[in-house]
């Protein structure tokens, strides 16, 4: 009795003390969930290759600045290359790199970017602004490429103008998105875009801005780079409209209404060029972008040690997902099995199935999984009748999994199902194992029992899925790794828990009648 009590006390302390530590840490540090969520960060590098340089030459561009939706950390440049001058004006932070006598220069400017998505809810019927600060007055004027006082543009703008800012933006947006996209990067001015009813991304943005200006709304184009794991040369233009003190972003081409995704690097505002240089020099450039997960948030000085795992480029978030969250999913499975009483094929199989759902369409994957399992176990049943040995039979079943996948993939391709290739992402070996377990229950037990177990295995997989898809949980565990000790404490208690499983309450309910 004493020993059991001592066990309970130790396990209980193992459960509670780390939780208490977490609480203390949280009270001290006041992490918000935003702090704990691993953020996508990018390392961006402008790479310039300049050659055949005269005595004096320069390259001009914009450098990003930190604001409420992007955080920039510049990586110090190597010494002895080009001389950097920066000037800040209303368009952004202009940078000018000047050569000092070299004839060939390979030059790099690197910075770290961390962004967050921004999205505005526009009041549909709130009236348009009538008075604007002086600083935005220039963004109501007609220019050479944004011909907002041209009669054609004015006529269209008038027809699109509605009561209220939100409705007006909506009709401008719908109109511009109705234009055909040329897919090119050629410069297009607003009037040409309107006349031809087709435009590149910069033409669409200029027309959107021109329509706003014609309606009396200050608007401007904004330029930057869409960040993704790549080496690219293209920059991107979108539009911004001024409303009650804020510049609201609109990217018609990529379908962002009053919102901007987290991976948009903002560089400048106004109808400017991203790159300028001395003419008649040899010049090549590219933007080298590396994506990685880490936090660069304001809390960076109080980031716990384990976060460095995530900051290290060679440890991907998907690797950490498996390592950090597998025990959490297994704990969940232990609770579902020993407290609820769900029966599954093995302990880890549902967790592995759930892991394979991450990044795929869940219902489609689970559905395909069930179909394949049933097909395969039908096959198992007939192979059993033939009297085959275990291992060759298992390999035949693996082959059958693959053939079924190929067939489903072919069918998906022919019938143009959405994301049919994701069927090939299904974990083959896990499916073959699951099929074997299913078939084993089918032969040892009966049909009903096997399907019940298949159903509850898939149910448990579905319940584990939110665990694996939660990046916040990864952040929480990196910040408070002591939670794992709590989990051990909880499992020690669960390991000695003798209560009836919930399904047993139903199973043994006939006993209640006699008592």
């Amino acid at each position, binding site marked *: 009795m004493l020993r*059991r009590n001592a066990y*309970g*006390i130790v396990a*209980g302390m193992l459960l509670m003390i780390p939780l208490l530590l977490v609480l203390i840490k949280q009270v001290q540090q006041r992490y918000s969930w935003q702090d704990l969520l691993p953020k996508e960060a990018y390392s961006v590098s402008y790479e310039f290759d300049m050659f055949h340089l005269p005595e004096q030459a320069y390259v001009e561009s914009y450098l990003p600045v930190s604001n409420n939706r992007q955080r920039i950390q510049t990586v110090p440049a190597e010494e002895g290359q080009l001389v950097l001058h920066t000037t800040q004006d209303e368009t952004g932070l202009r940078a000018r790199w000047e050569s000092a006598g070299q004839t060939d220069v390979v030059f790099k400017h690197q910075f770290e970017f961390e962004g967050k998505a921004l999205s505005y809810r526009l009041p549909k019927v709130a009236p348009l602004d009538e008075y604007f600060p002086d600083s935005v007055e220039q963004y109501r004027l007609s220019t050479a490429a944004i011909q907002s006082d041209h009669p054609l543009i004015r006529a269209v703008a008038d027809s699109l103008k509605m009561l209220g800012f939100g409705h007006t933006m909506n009709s401008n947006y719908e109109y511009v998105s109705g234009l055909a996209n040329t897919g090119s990067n050629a410069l297009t001015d607003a009037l040409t875009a309107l006349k031809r009813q087709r435009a590149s991304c910069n033409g669409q943005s200029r027309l959107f801005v021109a329509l706003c200006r014609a309606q009396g709304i200050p608007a401007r184009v904004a330029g930057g780079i869409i960040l993704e794991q790549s080496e690219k040369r293209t920059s991107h233009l979108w539009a911004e409209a001024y409303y009650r003190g804020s510049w609201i972003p609109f990217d018609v081409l990529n379908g962002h209404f009053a919102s901007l995704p987290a991976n948009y690097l903002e560089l400048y505002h106004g109808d400017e060029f991203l790159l300028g240089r001395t003419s008649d020099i040899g010049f090549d450039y590219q933007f080298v972008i590396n994506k990685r997960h880490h936090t660069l948030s304001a809390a960076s000085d109080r980031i716990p040690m384990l976060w460095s795992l995530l900051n290290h480029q060679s440890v991907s978030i998907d690797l950490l997902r498996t390592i950090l969250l597998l025990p959490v999913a297994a704990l969940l499975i232990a609770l579902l099995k*020993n407290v609820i*009483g769900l029966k599954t094929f093995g302990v880890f199989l549902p967790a592995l199935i759930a892991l394979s759902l991450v990044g795929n369409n869940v219902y489609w994957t689970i559905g395909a999984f069930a179909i394949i399992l049933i097909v395969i176990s039908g096959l198992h049943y007939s192979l059993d009748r033939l*009297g085959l*040995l*275990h*291992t060759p039979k298992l390999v035949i079943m693996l082959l059958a999994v693959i053939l079924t996948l190929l067939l489903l993939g072919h069918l998906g391709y022919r019938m143009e199902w959405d994301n049919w290739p994701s069927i090939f992402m299904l974990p083959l070996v896990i499916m073959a194992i699951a099929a074997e377990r299913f078939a*084993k229950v089918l*032969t*040892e*037990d*009966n049909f009903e*029992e096997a399907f019940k177990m298949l159903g509850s295995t898939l149910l448990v997989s579905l319940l584990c899925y939110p665990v694996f898809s939660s990046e916040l949980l990864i952040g929480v565990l990196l910040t408070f790794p002591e939670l794992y000790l709590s989990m051990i404490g909880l499992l020690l*208690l669960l390991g*000695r*828990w*003798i*209560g*009836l*499983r919930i399904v*047993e*309450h*139903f*199973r*043994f*309910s*006939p*006993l*209640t*009648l*006699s*008592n």
Partner: protein
Amino acid sequence: MLKRLFSSPTPAGGALGINERNLRYVYARNDKNAFPYADDKILCKEALDAAGIACASTYGIIERIGDIPRVWQSLQHYERLAVKPAKGSGGGGIIILKKDSEGRWCSGGRVLSDEQIFSHLAQLLMGMYSFGTSDRVLVEQCIIPHSFFHEIYPAGVPDFRVILLDQKPAMGMLRLPTARSNGKANLHQGGLGIGINMEAGTLAYAYDGQAYHTVHPDSQQQILDKKIPYWEELLELSIQTAEAFPELGYLGVDIVLDQELGPLIMEINVRPGLGIQLANRASLKQPLQTISANY
């Protein structure tokens, strides 16, 4: 809070659940090293024979494929044989062979050639029904169910299950096949579980997974209060069996009643199922606790 976590709640008639069974009885009372006796029918029989406990006579044991012709030759003077994989479960791979009037071996009404029988024996040896592990084959006496069962339902092989703790019987049940269970006597395969009044040696209600009956649902024969023949011997045999496996403090003993030989041990089980509580309409907890307290 901890105390509440550890004391089990009492709904569902205070039934014994899997968690408690495993922690308090299966793990606590049974030595893992003795589990092979429950998993391997040949090991079990050897131990039973050594202790002089009544069980079906062993006619032959086949260890290797090369042994098949020799052992098979030695079996030819028998009229009926039960062929079982030593490590099979759920009855898979078991065949009953009977000689017909012309002396040919038949199974399920079908005449089998020696080749067919050899091929089945070879499959058993290669682990077809033992999930990947190679296996041995046990050929033993074929049980003829006691006429007592025929009065209730004339098909399949019914068996008794007695659960013992510290060599003392705690609860018993009779498992009877039904039309729905396809000859099998397992509760969750549609068989009938019949509770046993341990003191009186009589049958109680029959549970079919949904309701309790006083008669067999197929034959309408009376079950309730029917006196079990050989009950005292049957109980004594279960106790002897438990004593033969002192490392297994908590076990289920499966016993058949042969028309001529009376009670015979079929096999032992180290994780006997909890459905026995449903058959008896009573929790296993009380009898197990009573035995523990008096031990």
